[in-house]
């Protein structure tokens, strides 16, 4: 389930109405297009100053939520998906720079390729792989010890990790179903013990063209 669905549930709870039917209908992917397409379904996005180097910024995108331990070593990225960070550095909510990531290879032999940060060749909901050399590549690793690569000042990782999201979603569902009136204390993290596919990039903030940024993530597929 994507975070969007989780928060749709939040909305429903906030409404405080008889909403069970709506929840049933929404309790999967967050749209018809993304249903059955976990590799393109963004679970979360994180943007933060590097704890190890204040001059760096860290970008994290997770997709394909709720990977059980039994599938941790066999879940991979989709070579037909372009994973992208879009960065606005002048406050108009239009991307000035993009960082792109895509995999080649299948099974346990995937490589994640990175391009940018660089100006996008197209703005908005259509996109292309930007021209020019790759800034970094790294082998996709689903192992406890991550494979990490650094090139052009950019450190990169791609592979299965623990899902960093935490929330007592089970109790929340009971609340909105009218089976409970309060959260548990302590709560129980529904996402504990589950994995996601993660792409992590750390790079000098100076490469992003400003101090005040707006960042969003996107996934795209070739048009049929």
């Amino acid at each position, binding site marked *: 389930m994507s975070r969007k669905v989780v928060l749709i549930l939040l909305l429903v709870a906030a409404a405080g109405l008889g909403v069970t039917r709506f929840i049933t209908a929404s309790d999967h992917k967050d749209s018809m297009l993304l249903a059955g397409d976990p590799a393109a379904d963004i679970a979360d996005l994180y943007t933060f100053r590097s704890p190890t180097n204040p001059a760096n910024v860290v970008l994290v995108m997770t997709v394909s939520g709720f990977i059980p331990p039994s599938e941790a070593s066999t879940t991979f990225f989709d070579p037909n998906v372009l994973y992208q960070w879009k960065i606005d550095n002048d406050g108009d909510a239009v991307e000035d720079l993009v960082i792109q990531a895509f995999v080649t290879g299948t099974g346990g032999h995937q490589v994640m390729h990175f391009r940018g940060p660089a100006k996008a060749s197209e703005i908005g909901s259509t996109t292309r792989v930007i021209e020019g050399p790759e800034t970094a590549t790294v082998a996709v690793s689903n192992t406890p010890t991550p494979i990490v690569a650094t090139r052009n000042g950019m450190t990169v990782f791609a592979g299965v990790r623990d899902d960093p999201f935490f929330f007592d979603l089970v109790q929340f569902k009971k609340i909105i179903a009218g089976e409970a009136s309060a959260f548990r204390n302590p709560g129980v993290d529904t996402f504990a013990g589950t994995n996601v596919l993660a792409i992590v990039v750390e790079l000098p903030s100076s490469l992003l063209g400003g101090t005040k940024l707006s960042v969003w993530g996107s996934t795209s597929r*070739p048009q049929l």
Partner: protein
Amino acid sequence: MKRTACRVASLLASLTAIAAAGCQNSSAPITSPHIEASVLMHQQMLQEDRFGLPAIATVFIPTDLRDAYNLGSPSGDVATFKSLIVAKLMAFGQDAASANALASALSPDVQPIDLSQPSNFLNGRKPSDDVITAELHLIFGSNAALNDDHVDANDVPFLTTFPYLAGPHVQ
């Protein structure tokens, strides 16, 4: 070394039509195998999903508009969706002024960060930030039964160094 030499020979062959003698596969493409293998090159792609804030904004988008929202761009959010957010917040009982202020913070749906300041949700988002409780507070205010899910941290510790996320749970 052999492979590199053959690539160079192959490159020369393609440029000068001279056979790359001694290479097992002199007609192999010259580009890196990683690059040549991508199916995405030179194709126009269409956005399937997007993500800015941890989804508060998306919460306010009706089901029948969700695909349009996922296909859209932040620069269109204020015009297309802000009024829906305001209306929803007012339906929850917020007055027009506070609904409008909150809707302005939620649209466009981007993750804002000022890198000159420490990162804490809503100035960026760290893995350890308790985003859900922040959002529950936003929605439920001082209602102590509902404004905190009492899951305050991840189930396993984050790493202090790159890639920061904990290793996978495996069998």
